[in-house]
C-alpha cells in the first residue's frame, strides 16, 4: 500500500498507543516519579474523576529535579495547562503533525467525554514507520563501506 496514503487514512490506533497510565492530582510528585519508573513510561495522565486534567512527563520531572523542587508536593501543583489530545478516529498523519508542531512526545487519546483511552508516543510512531518501510530500513548496510576498493578485486 502507498505509504503516504496510509498515513492519511489509517487511524492513530495503528501507531501502537499505550494504555493510559493515570494518577490523581493529590498524589505526590515522588509517587508519580516512582509510577513512571516502575511502568517504564515517560508520561502519566492526571485525572479528576474520569476526566483528564493534566499530563506529567519526564520533562517535568527533569525540570523539578534541576530546580531542587519539593518532591513531596502534590502533582496537581506543578501541572501545566490542559494537554493537547486527539480522538481515536484521527489519522496517523494528523497525530504526527500535532506532535511535531507542539514538540510533544506523548499525545493522549480521549473519547468525546474527555476520558483518556490511550496514549500515542513518539516511539509508537517510530515503530509504525519502521513497519511501513521494512525494505528501506532493515536492508540498509550500517556504513557506506565499499565491498572492494578496486573493481578488479583480488
Amino acid at each position, binding site marked *: 500500500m502507498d505509504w503516504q496514503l496510509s498515513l492519511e487514512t489509517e487511524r492513530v490506533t495503528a501507531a501502537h498507543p499505550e494504555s493510559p497510565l493515570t494518577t490523581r492530582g493529590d498524589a505526590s510528585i515522588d509517587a508519580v516519579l516512582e509510577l513512571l519508573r516502575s511502568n517504564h513510561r515517560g508520561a502519566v495522565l492526571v485525572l479528576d474523576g474520569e476526566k483528564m486534567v493534566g499530563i506529567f512527563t519526564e520533562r517535568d520531572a527533569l525540570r523539578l529535579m534541576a530546580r531542587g523542587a519539593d518532591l513531596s508536593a502534590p502533582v496537581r501543583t506543578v501541572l501545566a495547562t490542559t494537554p493537547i489530545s486527539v480522538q481515536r478516529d484521527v489519522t496517523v498523519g494528523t497525530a504526527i503533525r500535532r506532535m511535531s508542531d507542539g514538540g510533544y512526545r506523548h499525545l493522549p487519546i480521549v473519547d468525546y467525554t474527555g476520558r483518556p483511552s490511550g496514549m500515542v508516543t513518539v516511539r509508537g510512531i517510530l515503530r509504525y*514507520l519502521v513497519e511501513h518501510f521494512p525494505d528501506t530500513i532493515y536492508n*540498509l548496510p550500517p*556504513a557506506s563501506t565499499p565491498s572492494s576498493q578496486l573493481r578488479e578485486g583480488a
Partner: protein
Amino acid sequence: MLSQPLICPACGSENIVGVEQCGSCQQSLTELSLKKPRSSVEASLLRDVVGDLPVHAPLAVSPTDTVAAALSAMDAGRVGCVVVTEGERMIGIFTERDALVRLTGDLATVRTEPISKYMTAHPARIAASDKIAFAIHQMELGGYRHLPVMEGERCVSVISIRDILRYLTERISDGAA
C-alpha cells in the same frame, strides 16, 4: 519513458536500473533492481543522510561536573540530553530518561555527585554520512531518543527522534502539495 535512476543505499550514487553493483562503491544492487521506492518519502529515506538534518551542537559537560549542573544545563538549554566529554572526546551521554530512572534515593545527595556516575558510557553513535533510515533503525532497535553524531571521537551534533518526526512531516506535506 526513462525509468528512475536506481539510488545506491550505501553511497547514494545514481545507477541505471538493472546493474548488479553500484558503479561507485560496488554495493550489490540486485535486491534493489526488483523493488522501487513506493513513495517519495521512501525515496528520501534511501537518499538522505543524517548530515541533511539540522545540526544541534551538543551541550557538553565534563565527567566531574555535578548531577545538579548537568540537570540545570539541560533545563536551561531546553534539551533532552547532555554529552559528557573529556577534552574533545565524548565518553558518555546523560538523558532525561536517565535522570528519571537513575536519580533515585535522596536527591539532595545525588545532586552533588559527579555526572560520570550516572551517565551511559559508550552510547550508540552515528556519523553524518549515515542514512536517515539507518538512524531510525538504530533508534528503534535500541529504544534511543537521541543519537550523537560523531566525527571521529568528537560529537558534533545530537539528533533526536523529534528531528526524525519533523523530517518525515516535511516530506509528507511536500508529497501532498
